[in-house]
């Protein structure tokens, strides 16, 4: 049978984006080790609700590690103590009876806290809107097989494209830099033939937006790569830099702004 445990949670509680938050200590009793971490929080929330207390707000949705919504820093690490998974894939067997667990939201100026453990990540959307696409309309495109793509390139582009936009890279980075996130999309399109036409405008536009959002600067610590639940590689950042410097020093493309 499942092992049961009692835990002490130190949870960041904050009413809304305008108020100041603080840590609140909550006891989690009789937690089964085959629960997921979020199911543990569900149990705690059901308890709080029964007592008439406000449940802990946290973002989550698919609970299978792909939507990128869940976003908890657990004992000082984004998505908790294991590598290569999201918070929703973390199970309580990674903890032990009597343990104290500190749960915090992603911390970054560009990710303001909305409530408790949920943050506003629309800055990520705005970066994508700045250039994370190929300018093609629906219809009028060539047959899919008229664009052969070497398997190695397709695979590498896929590896970059698997980013789920959770923001763990920002949360893990001591500088709250978003470069892994931004570079993943720039890399995907820099590698694929479909991305070539706007390759250099895209790099400039997305990086401009990234800077405008107030993210920090990469110091190549590699924390983002280590904590990324999808294993997005640091080499994406190098590629992004190359794209950007090439655009700035050797190309004539400006950033295209739509009117």
């Amino acid at each position: 049978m499942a092992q049961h445990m009692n835990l002490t949670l130190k949870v960041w509680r904050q009413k809304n984006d305008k108020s100041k938050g603080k840590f609140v200590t909550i006891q989690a009793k009789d937690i089964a080790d085959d629960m997921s971490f979020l199911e543990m929080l569900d149990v705690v929330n059901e308890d709080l609700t029964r007592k008439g207390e406000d449940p802990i707000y946290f973002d989550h949705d698919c609970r299978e590690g792909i939507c990128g919504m869940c976003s908890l820093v657990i004992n000082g690490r984004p998505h908790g103590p294991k590598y290569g998974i999201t918070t929703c894939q973390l199970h309580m067997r990674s903890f032990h009876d009597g343990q104290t667990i500190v749960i915090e939201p992603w911390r970054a100026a560009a990710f303001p806290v909305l409530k408790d453990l949920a943050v506003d990540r629309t800055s990520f959307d705005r970066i994508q809107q700045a250039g994370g696409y190929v300018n093609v309309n629906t219809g009028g495109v060539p047959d899919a097989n008229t664009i052969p793509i070497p398997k190695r390139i397709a695979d590498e582009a896929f590896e970059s494209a698997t980013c789920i936009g959770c923001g763990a890279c920002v949360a893990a980075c001591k500088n709250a830099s978003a470069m892994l996130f931004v570079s993943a999309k720039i890399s995907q399109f820099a590698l694929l033939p479909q991305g070539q036409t706007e390759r250099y405008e895209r790099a400039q536009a997305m990086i401009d937006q990234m800077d405008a959002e107030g993210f920090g600067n990469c110091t190549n610590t590699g924390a983002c790569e280590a904590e990324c639940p999808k294993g997005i590689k640091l080499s994406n950042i190098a590629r992004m830099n190359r794209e950007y410097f090439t655009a700035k020093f050797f190309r004539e493309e400006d950033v295209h702004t739509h009117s």
Partner: protein
Amino acid sequence: MLDSKVPAGPLAEKWSKHKFNMKLVNPANKRKFTIIVVGTGLAGASAAASLAELGYNVKTFCYQDSPRRAHSIAAQGGINAAKNYQNDGDSVYRLFYDTIKGGDYRAREANVYRLAEVSVNIIDQCVAQGVPFAREYGGLLDNRSFGGAQVSRTFYARGQTGQQLLLGAYSALNRQIRKGKVISYTRHEMLDLVKIDGHARGIITRDMVTGKIESHEGHAVLLCTGGYGNVFFLSTNAMGCNVTAAWRAHKRGAFFANPCYTQIHPTCIPVTGDHQSKLTLMSESLRNDGRVWVPKTKELSEKLRQGQLKPADIKEEDRDYFLERKYPSFGNLVPRDVASRNAKEMVDDGRGVGKSGVAVFLDFADAIKRLGKDTVEAKYGNLFDMYYQITDENPYEQPMRIYPAVHYTMGGIWVDYNLMTTVPGLYALGECNFSDHGANRLGASALMQGLSDGYFVIPYTVGDYLANLGSFAPVDKNNPAFEQTRKEVEDKINALLSLKGSKTVDDIHKKLGNIMWEYCGMARTAEGLTKAKGLIQELKKEFWSDVKVLGENEELNMSLEKAGRVADFLELGELMVDDALNRSESCGGHFRLESQTEEGEAKRDDENFTYVAAWEFKGDDQPEALHKEELVFENVKLTQRSYK
């Protein structure tokens, strides 16, 4: 009278002719129209982007913090298209035929044919957007056979096809947001539909962060809100998936079709306990190499459950590979509904495995012996990892335990050939509508349908509606209908917030889920369904008298969000039961124990049930009225599905 508006003429020419016959909106006039798109999954994002490209003003709404998180993202296996790149005999007609047959002859021929027809354009579109599909060494696209199809027509991006397609549609959407043609509202939930003179002219939303109740006006409203599998509490859907937008539209006059058609997916990770919040699906591609079995006797199963025996201790002759035994030609690759039902039969027979006894084995030992561990790892590594993360059991060393789980709902808002609901100006796209999958959906067809509706159908059909309006005037936001509907939404929220009972919303939701799973799940009977109806009605009363909703409207309020959704699930649940009760035949995912062949297979009753059951809301606590759309099959012959 339900008019499906299917154009006349030969099947293969219907869509082309219809496209020509539809009216167009002059390019200069498109910008005078606003279209509301609710939901930003494959259907919503593709529709919003395509309409904005044409020049319409679009507003999108999603409850998540970003359009990119819609649950389409979780689809693993792939997307079908009749490209015939593999030269293995595929064609538009074959894809059409397979889909109709797979849906157990309960889908509309013309819609399904159109779906197969535009499937080829979808792949072109996605590749042009930079979706990194799997490729062969020569650089061309790779295909695989999926879900028991006899041809390789499934395009895929490792185990993350849904994610890559959604990110493609999201990128097209982002481009239009940047251009200012789309305004994106995130963390917004649609709570009602606004009708003016019988036409859909706007929606009421709640800003989930501030609680603000807002009115949004538009010339057309597109519901792209996905399925309602979460009525079962446990399903493979995301936690936030809900029926609220569709249900509120239903209460404003959109008929709800075939609500009882639910797909139970066979390869999910079994439930571990009461705390379980959702079920995780593993791609059914696992059944290509995994062998499904249980012990031949209850005694052996009991010993496995007690931990006295390990799976490896069960001798080959004591194992029952029940799918291979019963369906020698399809074996482990029978369609989803058949595989699921057989697993349930084994468990009901007392031969289930795992601690709970509610699971069957999916064994890769033979595959590893035959192909080597490396090959198995290359094919299924990410799924094996996922299984290991959740269960702490290593599938390379012991068989996986699987059990069916609610996955997809074929039923949904009734739409005509133009995807318009019974409310003029209100459309339903993707899983939200009922149209293309009949009583059972084939693997890799959901992504195809969502994108087909969004990229290639709605841009034409919505134009026809707008062109026929005869006016370019903006929707009057001062029309009293907005204020009236807004007030009704606020009243409902206040009613929910005033509930200060003793049960949590989840308590009620779990109870509802249990009722639905027990009586309206994989096997249904008139007796059970009748009982379920009573239980749901009682539960509804319990909800409205004894549930506890905390906090206030003006904040991020999880308790309130859930309460509104569960209130709607309770009403939907009752309708599902009514529909299941009405349809006393078995077809696809709907299995009535009273209607089976001698061998225990689903037995259709074509004479009496070759129709779409579309339900009309008649008022709170009133029985809904049944409308029938007769299904006419001019091209395929109805036969008993056989996978022997």
